[in-house]
């Protein structure tokens, strides 16, 4: 692939993943010298129309208008990457899916409802085919670089989809759950962040979504019976970032 044209798009999200991207933009252009950032509204004044070689989509789709845009983006991008928890699984915006009806959710946030046209928040693969996922809230820049290198080489990137515990133990962290009784979700969450939170003494919140073969129901039981969390707390933990996934849904429903 010669100088791939890259585009970055945003839907419902906090823009943190784009910000994370900006943190390495210089480095990326410098060293790769190989990508052409054609469209990135947050980063540049001059933006170009598609088609693009790789499109990075940040954010969940939460309105009919966004859905139309997403479909157009899909057509314009050879490779489409879901960037960040919101685009991968619905992320934080998807909390509203579990807060009663759509209308009830809207009423809790807005007073003027006549102009609100929202739909439940899903990851973008609910609507279009996605070629690769950059998980996390925010994304991991190492994985981002790995993904671009893989695209340039024309290979599937091998992200390791097993548990965060693996990365945590390799750092010889004292386990927050076993040794400190904190409700860490590392055991059912996909690795790739380098066990960032547990290494800083913060329990894993599951932002990267389910690890392969995650057994959320079993972890939910431990939270409930051994750590003494309430049913609501346990539910909230599994619905926070990836409640749309069948794996984490099982955790929420197990209690």
């Amino acid at each position, binding site marked *: 692939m010669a100088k791939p044209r890259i585009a970055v798009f945003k839907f419902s999200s906090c823009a943190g993943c784009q910000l994370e991207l900006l943190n390495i933009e210089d480095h990326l252009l410098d*060293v*790769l010298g190989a990508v052409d950032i054609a469209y990135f509204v947050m980063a540049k004044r001059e933006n170009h129309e598609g088609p693009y070689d790789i499109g990075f989509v940040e954010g969940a789709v939460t309105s009919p208008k966004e859905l139309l845009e997403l479909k157009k983006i899909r057509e314009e991008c050879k490779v489409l990457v879901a960037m960040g928890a919101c685009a991968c699984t619905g992320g934080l915006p998807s909390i509203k899916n579990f807060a009663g009806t759509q209308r009830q959710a809207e009423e809790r946030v807005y007073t003027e409802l006549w102009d609100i046209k929202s739909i439940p928040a899903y990851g973008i693969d609910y609507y279009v085919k996605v070629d690769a996922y950059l998980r996390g809230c925010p994304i991991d820049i190492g994985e981002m*670089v790995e993904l671009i*290198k893989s695209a*340039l*080489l*024309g*290979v*599937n990137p*091998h992200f*390791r*989809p*097993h*548990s965060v*515990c*693996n990365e945590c*133990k*390799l750092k*010889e*962290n*004292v*386990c927050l*759950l*076993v*040794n*400190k009784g904190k409700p860490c979700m*590392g*055991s*059912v969450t996909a690795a790739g962040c380098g066990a960032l939170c547990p290494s800083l003494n913060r329990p894993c919140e599951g932002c990267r979504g389910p*690890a*392969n*073969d*995650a*057994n959320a*129901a*079993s*972890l939910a039981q*431990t939270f409930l019976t051994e750590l003494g969390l309430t049913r609501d707390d346990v539910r909230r933990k599994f619905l926070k970032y990836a409640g749309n996934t069948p794996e984490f849904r099982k955790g929420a429903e197990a209690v």
Partner: protein
Amino acid sequence: MEAFVLPKAELGGFVAKLKADYEVFGPVAKDTEFVFGPIAAAEDLRLDYDTTILPPKKYFHRPVETLFKFDGAVEIAGEGEKVGKQVLFGVHPCDVNALLSLDKVFLGTYPDPYYKARRENTVIIGLNCVAPCENGFCSSFNTGPAMDAGFDLALTDIGDRYVVEVGSAAGKELAAGLAAASADDLIARNKALRACQQKITRRIDAENLGELLHQNVEHPKWEELKEECLACGTCTTVCPTCFCFGVKDYVDLTLKSGERPRTWDSCMFYEFSRVALDHIFRPDRAARIKQRIFHKLAYFSQQFEGSPGCVGCGRCVSTCIKSIDPVEIVAAIQANPNPPKEVKLFTPVIKKITPEKSPWEPQKAVIKAIKPQTKDTTTYTFAFVDAKVQEAYTYDPGVFNMISIFGIGEAPISISSCADVKDSFDHTIRAVGNVTNALAKLQVGDIVGIRGPYGVGWPVEEMKGKNVLLVAGGIGLAPLRPVIKYIQARRDQYGDFEILYGARTPNDMLFTDEFEEWRKIPNTRLYLTVDYVPPGVEWGHNIGVVTTLFDKMASRPENTIMITCGPEIMMKFVVRGLLARGFSPEQIYVSLERRMSCGIKKCGNCQIGPVFVCQDGPVFKYADIKDLPEEIF
């Protein structure tokens, strides 16, 4: 036993002396737990530790380790971290014994140069246990509370001093200057260790763990564990005898140079047994728990000359969020076992090969010819760039090479040419993933890396004087083509020869231009079949799966050897069909193509029960593998 005493008050001086010549590592506190870490002074040492988060294995089998660096396809440089002289101070008996088990893995078949260098540069000062740790059950395997091998020095705490036993010449040198232990000191040592032994109540008490487990491959306990286990893999990460790893290429931003590291991996992970096209051999969590427990408690000792695969260190228990515990698992099965049945434990023969160079470094090979076979499968003719290497290269029909595209990775591929050809060799490869697709983009004259040959091939010697029935499916014909050529060249040494070959459609058949030649081999019959014929394609042969050819063939069980390769599901039905026709499991040979990462019995990816497909296979006598706990077919 030669023994000395080291008064506790003199520990500081002893460690300071060590530090003059060695880097010293030992147990240090980390928050509420302990880890092995660098020791600046004796005060850092926490010899009262119970266990560490990771075992000292990490100093020998590194969590991540570069096997070599490459620059394009041209420059390959063996890497491996520089190893200085080091002392591991205060290693408990279980961990010392675990290293002895790991030695069998890394110093046995194809010694690993990196592990070996570290082992040779490391002095082990062991520390016998005078108080049992919380979850340990070492005494079940005689791997604690005292050690009797594997150390240079071994300390035992007897109050105000340590009794220091000497285990090696290097140890003896380090003990120079210490006072000899008195009879009373030795009595105190024995008393302390006996007292500890008596306090260890956690035990696996099974006469023959291998048999017990094999008889209980199906047991309600496994289903129970499947519901509990989080598949987090922590139990294997912290285990001092686990050796599994994965190999993957990393390129830097030039996309040309980079390195090939290996990283600890685990059979508890869903994707551990994943091969191309997303087939996963062990998708079920219960199957993966069984793999771990069986490997620890049974297979390991079958694979590595009786070495324990579990030393009872208790780490997997302490670290598991669900407290899943081998002691409890065995007890639960013992309390309620399946009715006894006779089990035959197949133990493969152990080989040792010492290559001149690092077994990790591929040789450069050039593509001499490329011949398309089907729309996604191609036959490549290779020759080693180094003429001497090519000249010395010999192989048996049915073995494989590891082919590298630097920056992308390595894949195991059977050799598809006749072993009699000397100046080159062929591989017939289907483009299905990263390595194979990258290969498909190469041209004549391009360079790849190749290591091998590896494995056990078809029993061409045993087949002599017998009739041969060859059954192939799809790309499975590639590893069988060397046999056809081999028999062709030695036609008088074999009896009747029948070839049954099936593919999905006529367009998926390999080596179609050679069929005429094969038919002309005296006393040979070739039968072809396809699953279906797309419109517009001409086909004058059978339609149906390959087993539908059985009615047409002349082969009978008497004096016949059957060899087969193809998708596992095909081989399963082939084997069943032949057994029904009176063939015995002794007459049937199959080639298994499981996941592989190393090819040299180190990475663990290819294990089926106690068998390593890469070295004990890929060709197996069906009789040997049919009773393996992981139902193959």
